[in-house]
């Protein structure tokens, strides 16, 4: 699997995700600067977490219009897998690769903790190593992770099976108490129509090694390697 990580001014999870990718692929991913206007031949593009452009105007808004995004959109159109994590999710929704928007957390505070997610799909390249209904523990760290889309869009996402993960209790219940940021319908991650683009607020790279205290996130990288190699 040939992977790349996009680096914006203000990215701060680019190296973490590079470590997680290298662990699963055996080789370091290409690190692509946001000003680059060409991409190498790739199977996977990761748009990492952080605060691209200081979250100016709206989180993800400036990153979505950086020079490299044109190339990412072209690659996504060709079916190259795109994974947006946290700020990367915000960037790719602003860029129009996914529906909806990430708004300020319901409780206004930045929330940094492990959360539990219910896996809703095991068919995409990102999720083959999971089973539908699995409950996994993955950390979040964000102030603007409150997923919002209008009801029509949410119904379509659910109807087409494009919700990837939802916030839940450790037992798997989709309660409001388990929703850390007020996301509509507890949504933590969504796919595009062809399930080739995934955006999610939680950070799988942060629990992808026993030394970090857990490995639930590692299965995502292993899924990608299995599917794309």
């Amino acid at each position, binding site marked *: 699997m040939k992977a790349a990580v996009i680096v914006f001014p203000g990215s701060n999870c680019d190296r973490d995700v590079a470590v997680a990718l290298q662990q699963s692929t055996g080789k370091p991913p290409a690190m692509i600067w946001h000003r680059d206007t060409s991409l190498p031949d790739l199977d996977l593009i990761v748009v990492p977490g952080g605060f691209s452009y200081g979250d100016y*105007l*709206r989180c993800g*808004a400036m990153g979505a*219009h950086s020079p490299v995004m044109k190339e990412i959109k072209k690659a996504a159109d060709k079916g190259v897998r795109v994974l947006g994590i946290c700020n990367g999710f915000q960037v790719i929704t*602003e860029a129009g690769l996914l*529906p*909806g*928007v990430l*708004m*300020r*957390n*319901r*409780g*206004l505070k930045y929330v940094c903790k492990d959360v539990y997610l219910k896996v809703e799909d095991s068919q995409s390249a990102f999720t083959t190593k999971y089973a539908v209904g699995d409950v996994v523990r993955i950390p979040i760290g964000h102030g603007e992770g*409150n997923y*919002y*889309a*209008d009801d029509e869009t949410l119904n379509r996402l659910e109807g087409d099976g494009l919700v990837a993960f939802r916030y839940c209790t450790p037992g798997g219940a989709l309660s409001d108490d388990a929703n850390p940021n*007020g996301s509509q319908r507890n949504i933590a991650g969504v796919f595009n129509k062809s399930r080739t683009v995934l955006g999610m607020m939680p950070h799988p790279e942060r629990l992808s090694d026993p030394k970090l205290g857990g490995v639930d996130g590692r299965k995502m990288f292993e899924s990608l390697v299995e599917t794309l190699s």
Partner: protein
Amino acid sequence: MKAKVHITLKNGVLDPQGKAVEHALHGLGFPSVSDVRQGKFIELTIAETDKAKAKSQVEAMCKALLANTVIENYSVEVMD
């Protein structure tokens, strides 16, 4: 010419910041306040002499970058 852009959240979109501001105003002795909604105000200068053209350009900017039309409305005012 100069343009002023107001960006506001659409009706029905939860505005936690507006809510927090409202609660703070209540706490400061302004119990009559309700429906606080927070938005953005952007001022810019545009090299254009035709008011209508300037307005349509700024509206294009709103659609492309300044506002996220999933959740926000915008209004543009152009001044000579």
